[in-house]
């Protein structure tokens, strides 16, 4: 039977180790640490094996026609797919020639944060992006448009008004989102995009909607979830969505399994909740700086124990009565 997909976070860690250890200057201690990481969990080893297999497979394509095929210009297939599927609407006109001379107008970057990391990015037009834990964005500015692709995770975007009026567009797996105002929150969930307008309006176009029928506009103070077909009706912004910006996780009668899932975003490795205690409710404000501290507090306030199989595999279970 097919095996379960590997968590992206584990894939990222495996890839990081794999690439660092490929470098001939990696020392014995690094190799030992890498071996230890692999041994920590079956999925770590699986991820590693997949990287190795893929690496070996690519090395078989020595030069020649295969290489030429992989290096073909990609814009053609992409254009073909776009034309057929109307996945992206790229209608922005070319910018004024005068703007071409400004060096920062074309600009590209790929940024990501590690698990537990938060970071602010300052873009050349004065825009600012705050990335939450385990997030990834690709940023591409050109003469006519400022585009940011949210690949994983969560971000707060602050967009200044720009004299050149280039549109600011965020792409997610499900939607193309045009920011019309100045402050927005976005999060990529497994099959949906969460979007909140904090200041100013935003227009959402689900990828599979035809023409204008799926278009939807959010006003300041509203939030929605979007799948590739349609956006849910807008509702009032839930204020606790902003808590991570101040490094806090606030729970109000939150189910323990939801709470643990949320905590798990900030801590490397697996963090699991035993179904037997999943329905316990938890309230409080927790500092995300130290997740293990929160786990300790958990076992003091709820009838649960926290088991460390390894530092990267932690389970919250019912406390066994002595």
């Amino acid at each position: 039977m097919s095996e379960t997909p590997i968590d992206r976070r584990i894939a990222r860690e495996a890839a990081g180790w794999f690439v660092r250890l490929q470098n001939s200057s990696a020392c014995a201690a690094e190799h030992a640490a890498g071996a230890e990481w692999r041994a920590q969990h079956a999925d770590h080893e699986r991820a590693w094996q997949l990287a190795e297999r893929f690496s070996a497979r690519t090395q078989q394509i020595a030069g020649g026609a295969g290489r030429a095929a992989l290096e073909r210009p990609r814009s053609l297939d992409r254009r073909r797919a776009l034309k057929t599927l109307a996945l992206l609407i790229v209608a922005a006109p070319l910018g004024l020639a005068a703007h071409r001379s400004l060096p920062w107008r074309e600009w590209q970057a790929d940024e990501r944060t590690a698990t537990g990391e938060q970071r602010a990015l300052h873009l050349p037009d004065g825009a600012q992006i705050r990335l939450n834990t385990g997030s990834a964005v690709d940023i591409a500015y050109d003469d006519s448009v400022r585009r940011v692709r949210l690949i994983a995770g969560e971000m707060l975007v602050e967009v200044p008004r720009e004299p050149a009026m280039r549109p600011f567009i965020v792409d997610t797996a499900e939607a193309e989102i045009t920011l019309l105002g100045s402050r927005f929150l976005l999060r990529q969930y497994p099959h949906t995009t969460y979007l909140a307008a904090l200041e100013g309006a935003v227009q959402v176009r689900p990828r599979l909607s035809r023409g204008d029928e799926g278009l939807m506009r959010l006003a300041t103070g509203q939030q929605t979830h979007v799948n590739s077909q349609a956006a849910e009706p807008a509702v009032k912004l839930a204020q606790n969505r902003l808590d991570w910006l101040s490094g806090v996780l606030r729970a109000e009668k939150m189910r323990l399994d939801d709470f643990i899932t949320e905590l798990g975003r900030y801590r490397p490795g697996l963090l699991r909740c035993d179904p037997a205690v999943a329905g316990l409710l938890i309230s409080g404000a927790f500092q995300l700086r130290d997740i293990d501290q929160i786990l300790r507090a958990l076992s003091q306030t709820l009838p649960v124990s926290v088991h460390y199989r390894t530092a990267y595999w932690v389970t919250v279970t019912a406390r066994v009565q002595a």
Partner: protein
Amino acid sequence: MQSTSSASVHRHQSIDQLYSHHHGWLQGWLRNRLGNAADAADLAQDTFVRLLCRAPDEPLNVATPRAYLATIANRLTINLYRRRSLEQAYLDALAQTPEELAPSLEHQALVLEALDEIDQVLAVLPAKHRQAFLMAQLEGYTQEEIASRMNLNVRSVQRYLARAFEECIVLASQGALHE
């Protein structure tokens, strides 16, 4: 064990139902988009095969069946175009190769299969990541050499390469690379 097999029976029934209610619609929808009846028929079929082959415990999203089917079909369509352009590029490049050096048809098929796996990963990477990855894996440049040729520091090169491996692990573990 019992529950697993009854879940998979249940799943088969739901797929049968999806098929009888929506297969015609899906094929029509694809034909409209692609303007090609043969591709539309193949892709509609592939969409259901894909559903059957997924892990048995993965929930079927039957609340919005057409959106669900369209999402899968769309992915398959993009993949089809990507694969065709890859095959075309490979054959074009072979045509430039002197005849006595051209690989046998069997060998070409093997190479194409490997190329297709790699190409699926490259397809989701930005251009610079692709370039760094190809230099490292196909041409055997060290990370330091890539850094100096691309005018980057070694850490950035490692980040680019790691992204490529990250995507390959994710895709391969989803079984996406063997299809």
